[in-house]
């Protein structure tokens, strides 16, 4: 695996994706205990998960367009929440 | 530095402050204890204040008491010779006539004060100084704060008129702050201590006469105020920055509300700031009529009632 720093985002931008990351994790773990008999909560979860995923993808699209990070076929970007650094990771 | 020694002559000595005396059984201070207490006060160069019960003391006590310069704090039931007379509720005020130079303490619960505060006008005709002490300030609610604010405004109007008529009555809640430029609190444990009939010292009478108190030494073993610094203003993290200079900063109420002697509860702070703000308005109103206390600074306008809400965050 090759890992290379390709950029950095602002703290506010990092906070935005970190909150979405945390929310998605929370929704994922909530899914393990949700049962179908709680229909209201289940519907709320489905809606929320869809919105969170969409915002999540939207963040990466916006940031990639804004900062024009280096990319590579088969690679992916990583963010370090401590430093706001963006890395390109190649398998 | 300790400057005053309060001597409770009996377990049932009258309360002249916020606390209620829970002790109902008479227990006169032994004469030898009284003598030893006075001796302690003389050696330590303390001003002595005797607090009387509502019954006549044996003659032998009078002779000992008169052997030292002092102040007598007495209940309304036995007012003869009082320097400070304590009345509990409006009812005890009805038949009272003050002698010259006698100060008056009026203790009453909020229910008796709200809506009737204007009755102090009649009392201020009879005494040069009146201290009003609300005995349940720690129970104030938001509605009570509003009622208290209204009552202070009402009394401030009365005082303004009195000053315009050339009189200079003193009412602790409203006129003290106009005169003060630094904190002037009760000073329990700092500038004054109390000697109880059991021969022990206490921070103030409440620490003996109300539940949950503790001693700070005894005549036999000497005065030992542990953590004495906590009774001083410089070790009160909220109060040392505060400018509600007239606040009693009641150590006993502090402890009751927050468990710490150096930290006031919300209710005491807000009540003191309502008094401070009403004093500000009174000062401004009197000054509209002409020069008044020209050497005193204006009381500045503030936007909080509890200094805890604007404390420095670390």
């Amino acid at each position, binding site marked *: 695996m090759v890992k290379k720093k390709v950029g950095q985002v602002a703290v506010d931008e990092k906070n935005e994706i970190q909150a979405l990351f945390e929310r998605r994790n929370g929704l994922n773990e909530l899914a393990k205990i949700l049962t179908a008999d709680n229909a209201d909560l289940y519907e709320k979860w489905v809606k929320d998960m869809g919105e969170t995923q969409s915002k999540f993808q939207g963040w990466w699209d916006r940031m990639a367009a804004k900062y024009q990070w280096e990319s590579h076929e088969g690679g992916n970007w*990583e963010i370090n929440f401590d430093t706001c650094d963006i890395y390109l990771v190649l398998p | 530095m300790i400057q005053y020694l309060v001597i409770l002559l009996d377990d049932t000595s009258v309360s002249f402050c916020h606390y209620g005396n829970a002790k109902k059984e008479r227990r006169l201070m032994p004469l030898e204890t009284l003598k030893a207490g006075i001796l302690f006060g003389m050696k330590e160069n303390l001003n002595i204040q005797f607090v009387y019960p509502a019954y006549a003391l044996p003659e032998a006590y009078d002779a000992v008491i008169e052997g030292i310069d002092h102040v007598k704090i007495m209940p309304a039931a036995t007012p003869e010779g009082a320097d400070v007379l304590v009345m509990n509720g409006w009812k005890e005020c009805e038949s009272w006539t003050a002698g010259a130079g006698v100060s008056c303490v009026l203790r009453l619960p909020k229910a008796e004060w709200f809506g009737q505060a204007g009755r102090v006008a009649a009392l201020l005709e009879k005494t040069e100084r009146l201290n009003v002490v609300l005995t349940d300030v720690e129970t104030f609610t938001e509605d009570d704060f509003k009622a208290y604010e209204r009552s202070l405004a009402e009394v401030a109007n009365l005082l303004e008129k009195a000053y315009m008529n050339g009189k200079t009555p003193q009412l602790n809640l409203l006129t003290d702050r106009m005169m003060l430029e630094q904190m002037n609190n009760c000073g329990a444990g700092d500038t004054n201590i109390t000697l109880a009939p059991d021969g022990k010292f206490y921070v103030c009478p409440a620490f003996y006469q109300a539940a949950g108190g503790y001693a700070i030494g005894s005549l036999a073993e000497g005065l030992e105020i542990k953590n004495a610094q906590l009774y001083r203003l410089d070790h009160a993290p909220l109060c040392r920055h505060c400018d509600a200079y007239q606040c009693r900063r009641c150590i006993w109420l502090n402890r009751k509300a927050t468990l710490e002697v150096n930290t006031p509860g919300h209710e005491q702070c807000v009540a003191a700031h309502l008094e401070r703000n009403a004093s500000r308005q009174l000062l401004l109103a009197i000054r509209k009529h002409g020069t008044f206390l020209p050497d005193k600074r204006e009381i500045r306008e503030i936007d909080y009632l509890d200094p805890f809400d604007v404390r420095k965050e670390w």
Partner: protein
Amino acid sequence: MEKIKETGRGWQSGMAKNITFIVTKDCQLACKYCYLVGKNSKERMPWEVAKQAIDYILDHESEMREESVIWDFIGGEPFLEIDLIDRICDYLKTEMFRRNHHWFNSYRFSFSTNGINYHTDKVQRFIQKNHDHLSIGITIDGTERKHDLNRIYKGDGRGSYADVVRNIPLWLEQFPHGGTKVTISSEDLPYIKESVLHLYGLGIHEVNINCVFEDVWKPGDDALFEEQLMQLADAIIDGGYYRDYACSFFSEHLGKPLDCVTQNQNWCGAGKMLAVDAEGNFYPCTRFAQYSLREKKAWIIGNIRDGIDKNKLRPFLLLDRCTQSPQQCIDCEVAEGCAWCQGENYDAADTPTIYQRATAICRMHKARVRANNYYWNKLFRKLELEDAREACEENHPKPNPLNC
């Protein structure tokens, strides 16, 4: 093409509300230095109490505006009550989500365990279910002889090292950044160096270690402590451990004088935290519950039925360093980094106050400062000679400064 890697061991440090459930006062162990003087097997938190506490806390969102929350579970040994904990966590997740509570975006479940039950099916199922939100620390004190000196089973008094160390690989596999908390008492001093190195050898990269705040120290302990720390410093530097391992005894922020105006903050977070016990009473921190106190009455700030009495919290939120410190601490030339526990201050005070700082660790702190100075002087010289100082300062791991 995106992926998120979460890093940073001090999760939301300083921004999180810490809420502790004292789920049980029972423990398999009877550690000799344990400050919990009132442990027992009877006081277990009923589910109804836990639920009512959660409802109260979540109902009062406007009064707890911290961005994040750490739901902390403590005992005794918390994993003795894994069924209750599982139910609490499920309810918390569901309720934070259902109420649109802001903490659903930022929460952790935190445990400090003796590690004995770590491998059991129930605990493992719980870990699988909540892994992304867990912070679990296993307490292991070092070498077997050091660990078993204090951390012994109640009853037969045998050491617990073997039962804990067998679970370390599983724990590190699940939480590779897991840190351990080591407590040092007078009898432990000769084993500090070997113990820290042993923990590194087990694969634990973060060793948070502190001397007990209680007045247990004997004449000469400071010299022994200093000697052990210097030997440890040599071993860490000469062995190159500083690159990947952290030990909280050594800190760059230690041993300078402090100013009473600009550096006046309280050390301890008591009062900003909240603890609830089996009776449903609230405390400013677990150390103020009766089972933690030797000499003083519990400092109860409310309960799940009547709520929190904010007046009882005011002294905590007004605490600053200098108001609670004796003159010797205010004037101290090496004050920086000298810690205190508000609960121990309260317990040891001459009157029932949190405004009297205990100074039992004074000589130990000064010894630590001397060894710490030695460590950094030696390390920086080495790095300068290797032209590696800048890189090291950027990358070397830093321990969690909160040792409570």
